[in-house]
């Protein structure tokens, strides 16, 4: 019985190991992840009205501010970037027990630790970071990670925020040379339902990861303290996305309902905006 319990408590023999060099695949959500999302595209996001207003007020010029130029992605968003990753494990030399997994992400030089030694999370008054504080455990052949102590970050990189009170669950699933990371974001401030995304990687032992230096500079000469944003009701760009893609403006506003397939049936009865005429190159 003791042996049985001991076997259940630790990593099983032959268990999946996510260690290695992993190259991202962008077939999923390419437009959102690499060129970047359109202004006003909240489709498929389980957001509330407060998040919608944050998005409507957001001005991309905000990223020009020196304080924001090198802002890293959060733990739940970092997977979505142009992120080649390296995962390696740390073991206690004396006992050979797994202590932690470490993850290096190329975008923003992000270095993350997933503690596997059962340590508690810090108190609520401790600092928050882009990647938060993560602890992991094995659930069968899946590595499940819980993260809190996150700084505010993106749900979508067009001004839709994820708050610093959010928590994240991640599930690492390896199938041979493929790694899928399923990320579930729980945000009591801006999300009405958990938000689930998956990102895929391919084992790539030959990859070399380039450095990602970032140096903040004064890109635009502005008076101190100016924060670019749109006043309520003045963002003239919000209709461009639904018009360009023939999506009903109502659907572009997002909400939990827009995550589910049956919403496509509802969309058929919604009005769309006229598509903009393509600019002539002549």
């Amino acid at each position: 019985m003791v042996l049985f319990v001991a076997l259940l408590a630790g990593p099983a023999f032959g268990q999946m190991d996510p260690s290695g060099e992993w190259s991202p695949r962008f077939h999923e959500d390419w437009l959102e992840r690499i060129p970047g999302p359109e202004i006003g595209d909240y489709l498929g996001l389980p957001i509330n009205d407060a998040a919608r207003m944050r998005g409507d007020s957001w001005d991309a010029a905000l990223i020009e501010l020196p304080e924001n130029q090198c802002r890293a992605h959060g733990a739940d968003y970092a997977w979505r970037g142009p992120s080649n990753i390296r995962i390696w494990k740390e073991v206690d030399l004396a006992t050979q027990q797994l202590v932690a997994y470490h993850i290096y992400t190329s975008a923003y030089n992000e270095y993350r630790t997933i503690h596997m030694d059962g340590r508690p999370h810090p108190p609520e008054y401790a600092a928050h970071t882009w990647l938060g504080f993560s602890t992991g455990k094995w659930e069968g052949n899946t590595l499940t990670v819980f993260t809190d102590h996150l700084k505010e970050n993106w749900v979508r990189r067009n001004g839709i925020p994820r708050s610093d009170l959010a928590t994240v669950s991640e599930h690492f699933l390896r199938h041979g040379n493929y790694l899928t990371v399923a990320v579930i974001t729980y945000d009591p401030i801006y999300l009405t339902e958990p938000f689930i995304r998956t990102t895929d990687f391919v084992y790539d032992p030959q990859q070399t990861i380039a450095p990602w230096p970032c140096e903040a500079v004064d890109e635009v000469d502005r008076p101190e303290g100016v924060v670019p944003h749109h006043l309520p009701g003045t963002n003239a760009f919000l209709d461009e996305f639904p018009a360009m893609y023939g999506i009903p403006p109502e659907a572009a506003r997002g909400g939990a309902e827009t995550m589910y397939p049956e919403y496509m049936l509802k969309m058929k009865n919604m009005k769309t905006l006229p598509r903009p005429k393509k600019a002539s190159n002549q």
Partner: protein
Amino acid sequence: MTRKPLNSPQRLRVLLLLAAAAFLATASSSRVTYSQESQSPPPQGQAPANVEVHVLPVQGRVYMLVGAGGNITMQVGDDGVLLVDTGLAGTSDKVIAAIRTVTDKPIRFIINTHVHPDHTGGNEAIAKAGNTITGGNVVGDIGASAGNQAAVLAFQTVLDRMSAPTGKQAPTPQGAWPTETYTTPERKLFFNGEAVQVIHIPAAHTDGDSIVFFHRSDVISTGDIFVTNRYPIVDLQHGGNIQGVIAGLNRIIELATPGPMQEGGTMVIPGHGRLCDQADVVFYQEMVTIIRDRIQDMVNKGMTLEQVKAAKPTRDYDPRYGATTGIWTTDMFVDAVYKSLSKKD
């Protein structure tokens, strides 16, 4: 400990106030009750039961003490203990016990970031638990008895508000008052091997705000100009103004140097809430500035306060910072911003 002597007007002011208070025996054991003197804000003046004070190492020589009301910043070294703020009255025994888990060095210096009782309530008890090295010009300036307690430094208006003119009842006991004040844009100390810069932010949370920058440790203690758990309290009755709050946030951002990828580097201890860095202050500054801009636009259009409230200019931030009950509601915040921006100087 290195101390700069008070200039003549400050010294005279302190001596007169101390003498008057002693002569009239007006020191009261009652705590500050803000409801008597202002409509806003009413920071909690009493410690809740079963308070626990926790110590969080920050970096360098600096620690954050949490749970005594407002956050307390503690700098520790061979020279002794320097505290920024003292928490609520009634928590002092636990604050001192928390300090003693880190060091047995004497408490030498207290700096008050502003007048509110959740930051100054422990002044009397904690100052009495410490002492000042006297001798030289210190004895000549403020008397040998000054050595019986830690020195308490604040901007001049903090003393003005905690004390009272001769013949008037002071709102706080004499023992809680600052023993040193400054009226200049900043005051510099050198304590525990590092420069400690005390910077006055005019007309912000109150009219007596100071932020404290520990240079070598690379930590800023902000008082209530920056908090993480609510909209900033703008205490109009005590000279506060939203423009000053934003100026203070901008100053903190300017002083702080972030680490790689805008994380870490200079650490920031807020008046309330969790430990932060520059990026956290930037999020907060953006929020306050955006709301200020929205309400300014409405003021410019001639909208009344009721019309502004009905337009809900804070609704995207309310789930994070808003409140409908407690000491500082969203309604009170919008009210204070509107009045700040409508004020004709």
